[in-house]
């Protein structure tokens, strides 16, 4: 089950995929904490 792909290729793909996911997530997400319905009180508890 372990082959060269997992040890030699997959790790490099993980770096690029994680960077891509991070960039897409950050750009696609709405302005954080702009929605007044969101609880943004630092001292407030759940």
């Amino acid at each position, binding site marked *: 089950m372990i082959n060269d792909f997992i040890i030699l290729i997959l*790790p490099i793909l993980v*770096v690029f995929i994680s960077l891509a996911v991070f960039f897409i997530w950050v750009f696609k997400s709405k302005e*954080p904490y702009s929605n007044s319905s969101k609880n943004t009180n630092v001292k407030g508890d759940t």
Partner: protein
Amino acid sequence: MLEDPVLLSRWLTFITLGFHIIMATIGVGIPIFISIAELIGIKKKDHHYILLAKRWTRGYTILVAVGVVTGTIIGFQLSLLWPSFMQSAGHVISLPLFMETFAFFFEAIFLGIYLYTWDRFKNPIFHWMLSIPIVIGSSASAFFITTVNAFMNTPRGFDLENGAFTNVQPFVAMFNPAMPSKVSHVLTTAYLTGAFILAAIAAFHLLRGKTHIYYKKALHLAMIGCFVFSVATIVNGDISGKFLAYYQPEKLAAAEWHFETTDRAKLLLGGILNEDEQEVKFGIEIPYALSILAFNRPSAEVIGLNDFPQDLWPPLYIHYFFNLMIMIGMFLAAVSFIYLVFYYFNRFNSLNPWLLRAILLGGPMAILSIEFGWILTEVGRQPWILRGYLKVAETATTSGHVFEMLILFSLLYLALGILLPVILIRLFTKKSVESEIDKHHIIL
């Protein structure tokens, strides 16, 4: 002890690299966040993100400056403390060593231009484009130097003739089997550490009652990075386990106190080892987990330490560093996951003080995890400096003046370790976020 140049050389290398790795890791991780913050600021016309990029760049520049000092020292110490290693194998790895320096200069030159050209372009996207070489240079620098470390673990690309390394193939040496898993693990953990440092700073300010949206934006951006890169790090950690099982089974066996070659091998957490009896007390055993980690199969056979001569065993205390590294990694992943769940499911407060405290703790914990992981990989290679070819004890300097160097450099790192936070704190308290936002006429 004070007259043993091998031990003293090891200590000096440990202290130098242990200090440098903090600057290097944060220096590799933060440029990604600077670049993305500036791009968001430009695209969304949001000056808070621009200010984030500006302030992060200032802190990053100081870390790079200190990193230059320690990085230069490492270059010298490689030749001074490990002359036989550099004489024998230096020419095999000279390409990535040179390329690492080149990548650093590439990063540093563009960092200088980036710093001094804020607001100088009519179209700010041109300024953002200057951040790309900084990101590429810092990550490339990590890539090249990690290939050298990978080479020390799985040496390739040369023939050994009468004790000399001949027929050198630099690219084969660079792209050795350890390279992909090591480079990948180093890069994602550097991004993760950078993200947690930035998130911890934002959490610190929020906990102190600074509730400006600027800090919340900083926290949210960094926490997305924390989660994505912690997941990537877990995947890479799993791949590293498989790499070790195949190419350095003695390191995996030592890290897991796995003495007998068995199938259905158990993963051990914690415990106290009786080395003579090869028995472990108080440890938590997870059935099949080591076989799954090593070969993705619960029934897989994992090689034990007793298959190797005892004088070639790595020190067995690396088990604790292995455990601590994994535990901190899991903590970082859990904290970032909980934050995102709280944020996206409005039932919970994602700025809960306890969660913010956990994020704040995540900053230093991420650095500790880097240190533990590095100790695991370096000590786990012992007694070899170049696995299978050169031993640490054979390659150290025979000079009788290493102790003086050790004292001198320890004092230097102590001074830098005190000065660095003092400078950073002064820099950021002198120019507060609020005053800088006021200066840019942004409505609060």
